[in-house]
Structures are given as C-alpha cells and as structure tokens.
C-alpha cells in the first residue's frame, strides 16, 4: 500500500513555493521559483519540478492546499482541499517545526508580517499596509542600482565595519539617501549594511509597531536568507533570531500540514501541469460598483470566479 503524501503551494507576488510532505511532516519534495507575474505558469513549473522529485511508487498525494495572494486562483486550478490565508499557513508551518516559537517575523517579496504566538497558536498579527518599503522588492531594486546581486547582500553587509545611516521609511527617500551616500564616497559595503539595517528598523517601527517581541524569535520569508538583515534584527532586538533552513518554504509547508490535518482527501493529479489555464477579468455592469470579477478557465471551461461584491455579479460555473 502506498503511503500518503500532501501537497502545499504558496503563491506569492514575487515567488512561488511548493512542497510535498509525508504523514510525519517530512519534506519529500520542494521547489522555489519566481512568480514572474504569472501564477498559473509558475504553479505549473513548480508542479513539474515536484513531480521529478516525487516517488509515485511509494507515495500518493491524497490532499493539497494553497496559500498566498493567488491562493484562490491556484486552489481552483489544482482542486485544493484547503485554501487559506498566509498568516495561518505561516503560523502552522512554523509552530510545527518550532513548537516553542513566540514571535514570527516574516519579510517577503512585497509584504511583511509579524505573528505573535502563545502556546503554539497565533494570537495576534500585523501586515504592512499599502507601502512595500523595506521588503524584498525594495532590496532587489537597490541591489540593481548598486550593481550587485541581491543574494550577495548579506555576505557583503557582514564585511562592513559600520552601517551607513539610510532612511528606509519610504523607498523614494531611501533611494535619494543612497545616491547621496554614493556621491560622498561612502564604501559600498557600508551602504549595503545600512540598507539591511534600514530594512530591520523599518520593519520594527512599522509592521511590528506596538507588538511585543518575545523570544524565541523565528525569522522567515525570502529576506531571511539575507544574513545582514538577520544580524541587524539581532542587534536591534538584543536576542537571538533563528532562521530555519526551510524558512522560505514555511507557507507552503504550513498549508500542506493544514491539508493533512483537515483530513479532507481528494485525488490530485500532476496532469494539471499540462492543462491550459486562462484567467479573464470581467467588469460587472449590473450595478454602479463595477466589480472586477476574475474568471478562471481550464481548457476553455469556466471552473471558478470571484471578486463580486454582491450576488448580482455571481458568474456560475457549469
């Protein structure tokens, strides 16, 4: 008899993550790649990569879940049994691996969040609002400006003797600050260290404002791979900050665990990776709200739709 396995996909604005776990929450397959503005294509690529790592002789996927900003779209695409917000998914993922965690810091491509945990359950959270200052996208654009790869940022920052003061409250101000620092001949590594410090400072002053940060602290999301930011957090908080080696997969892992715990099982087939998915945005004209309704088609057939504020805009799938 084949053993049960569970699939979790986390589709963020910048990156898409996928994992397959077994009944003991062991990761059997994993994948991390850029969304590139196309969640359905990114999901297909993730599925193909997971399929290669997966042993269908020993395991079969009995349930799947999706999270992240495109969770609904991809959820209806793969027929997920569990579609949940990223706060819960991250809280579940992290508390599974670190049962004693009290504070989860998360900085992703375009958003950042803090989750406060008590007795293994989230009790409070905060997310950044409209502005994406101090997230991965900000660091990437600054790396581009400095002519270095963002992946090298951490290492370079750690080499710096000190961090140049850079305002990170707003990306526009940070950029002009950075240009100024370059013009006055400030060494590049000090600027990079300054950017890392600014990201940590911006996060603590905005997203984490008013939240009590209690150890143990786990830091995850793409930016947690940046050792410079990790060190700045440790300095600012005066406590160790743990980065899990699978921290970038935590949302996908969490939603896979939730799919497992839900005990809702349903067939999943890698065949969806070969199907054609198309989305269409329809502006509803039934009332003055003009809701933007998203319709998802699989091989030309409407399978799901959402975005309508009232029932007048409901578009039924056949």
């Amino acid at each position, binding site marked *: 008899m084949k053993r049960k396995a569970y699939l979790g996909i986390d589709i963020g604005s910048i990156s898409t993550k996928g994992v397959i776990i077994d009944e003991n929450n062991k990761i059997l397959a994993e994948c991390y790649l850029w969304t590139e503005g196309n969640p359905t294509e990114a999901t297909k690529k993730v599925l193909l990569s997971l399929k290669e790592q997966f042993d269908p002789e020993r395991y079969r996927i009995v349930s799947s879940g999706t999270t992240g900003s495109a969770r609904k779209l991809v959820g209806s695409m793969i027929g997920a049994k569990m579609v949940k917000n990223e706060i819960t998914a991250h809280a*579940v993922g992290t508390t599974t691996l670190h049962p004693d965690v009290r504070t989860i810091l998360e900085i992703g491509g375009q958003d950042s969040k803090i989750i406060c945990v008590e007795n*293994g*359950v989230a*009790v409070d*959270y905060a997310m950044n609002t409209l502005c994406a200052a101090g997230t991965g996208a900000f660091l990437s654009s600054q790396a581009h400006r400095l002519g270095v790869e963002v992946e090298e940022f951490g290492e370079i920052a750690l080499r710096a003797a000190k961090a140049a003061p850079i305002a990170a409250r707003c990306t526009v101000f940070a950029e002009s600050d950075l240009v100024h620092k370059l013009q006055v001949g400030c060494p590049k590594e000090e600027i990079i260290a300054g950017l890392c410090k600014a990201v940590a400072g911006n996060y603590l002053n905005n997203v984490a404002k008013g939240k009590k940060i209690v150890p143990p602290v786990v830091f995850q999301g793409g930016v947690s791979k940046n050792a410079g930011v990790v060190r700045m957090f440790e300095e600012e908080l005066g406590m160790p900050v743990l980065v899990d080696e699978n921290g970038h997969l935590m949302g996908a892992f969490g939603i896979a665990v939730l799919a497992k*715990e839900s005990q809702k099982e349903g067939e999943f087939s890698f065949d969806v990776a070969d199907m054609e998915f198309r989305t269409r945005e329809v502006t509803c004209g039934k009332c003055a*709200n003009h809701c933007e309704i998203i319709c998802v088609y699989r091989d030309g057939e409407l399978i799901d739709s959402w975005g309508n504020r009232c029932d007048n805009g409901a578009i039924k799938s056949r």
Partner: protein
Amino acid sequence: MERIQKIGIPRGLMAYRSGMLWKEFFEGLGYECIFSPESDRRILEKGTGRAIDETCLPFKMYLGHVMELIGKCDTIFVPRTGGYRTTEKMCTRYEALPDLVRNIFRDEQVNILTVSYDWYNRTTEEKVYLELGLSLGKTKKQVKKAYSSAKKHQETRQKNREKAQLKLLESEKTRVLLAGHPYVLHDAYMGGELVRILENLGAVALYTDYVNRENALKRSYEFSRIMPWIINREMTGATMLMKKKVDGIVIVSAYPCGPDSLVNDMLVRRLKDVPVLNLTLDAQSGTAGLETRMESFIDIIRYQKAGGYGNQN
C-alpha cells in the same frame, strides 16, 4: 426662504446617526424628504473628483451624495454640527460642512438648508431644531411637535437596535465587534463590504453604535477624560463595554481620519485579552487584502478556541 417643497439629505456622515430624525422632522413640518441612494463606487468616484486629495474617504463619499441630490430637490440639508460640549465635539469637517459644500459646488449654485450649533453656544438639541424650524417659517408649536415626534421614533429605533444586538451576543457563531464611525460601518460601500466578508466566514457583526449611547459615553470618560470627539467617545466607550462579551474586535477606520489616528492607537493598547484587528479602509477597489486580513483574524479566534492547529500531537 423661497418655496421649498422637497428637501434632500445626502446619505453620508451624520446621516448615519440622525438621518431618520432629520427626515421625520422635516416630514412632520409638511415637507417631502428624500435620501440619496446607497453608496457605491460611482458615488465615491464622483465625490473624489470634487474633493481635495488630503481629505478623508467618508467626506469624499459625502460629496458624491450631495451630487446625487443636485437637481432632484429644492434644497439640500447640510448642517453645521460642532457639538454641545468641549469634550464632545465633532471633527472640523462637520464644523465646516456647509461652507465646504457651498464652495465646492459654487458653479452648481446648490441651495443649502443649514443650521449651526457649537459647543460654546451652550445650546441643546431641541433649541437647535427649533431654530431650524423657525428659519423655515414654521410656528414654534409646529416645530416642537415635529421634533418631539421624530425624536421619540429615533429613540425607539435605537432601543430596538440595542435589543437586537444583545440577542446577537447569544449567537453560536463567531461574534465580531466592528468599532468605528457609524458612517463608515453602515455605509454600503465601506463597512458593508466588511460585513459581507464576515458573513461569508460564518461570523456575525456587531456595531459600536448599536450599544446604548449614554452608557458608552459615560464609560468613555474612564477611557479618557480629555478626548474631545463625541463619535470617538461613543466608539471607545462602547468597545470597552463590549470587549468581554465578543470573540474579537475589528477597529475600522477610513483613511485618513485624524481623530482615529490618535484614538485607535490608544484603544489598541487598552484592549487586553481579546483579539484585536486594526483595519484601515482606503479607496482601493480590490477586496483581496481585506479578505486576507479578516480571514486571518477569524482564524486566530477560532484556532485559539480550538486550542491549537492540531499539528502538535
């Protein structure tokens, strides 16, 4: 005043508190009275087009409602409401409302019916309505009768809402208190969306303005002795009264509200032992962000009650 037959009331700001009182008062004096329609995106866009950028979302919406009424009535009722006491004032937009409307719609030459009261005049609500009625050329007796009848109905309506809300507290569903200004909570486009999301998640919405006003006001003085705004007083007082009776509190503010930015921060610090979500509504038309935030919040409440995610056995 020249012949007025039909009075229009913009469905925004204080209309969500006193709109029916106004309507019945005017009807009691023999006028026809109409409201602008429920808020939607088109009304907001129209209002936004006439407002300065920095003003708040509800005020932009209000301007849209004024525009809905232009040409459909003889005059539009836009009162200047300062407040009756120095610690129970309204925000400056209310104090300036008729002037703002008159100037913004100068080209349209809108006919505005107004009445003005301010905390330094030491007046009462009854006197204000008397002044308003007399300005319309009615007799003292007519005005007093119209006011007391309209006021009585308003009180009954409020009592019924309070009773209905107390019943909701016995609900088996997740009970979420929406704390905010009435004109945000009950606006079809702003708060209406939140209520819809809550209901889809199987939760019930309760409102701070459906809590007994006198009790809420009294409680607010324990929260702050000097806070000057009456709406924030009623909202914070009601929140303090309700905090132990609900499963969670969502503090709702419409961007950018000056009083809320000061008060809500303080309120969050005073709310212990109950899940709180601080939510700011803006003009973004997408609702995905709101859904994510509300769903996460409801999850926190439910998994806490369940004692965990089931992942640590």
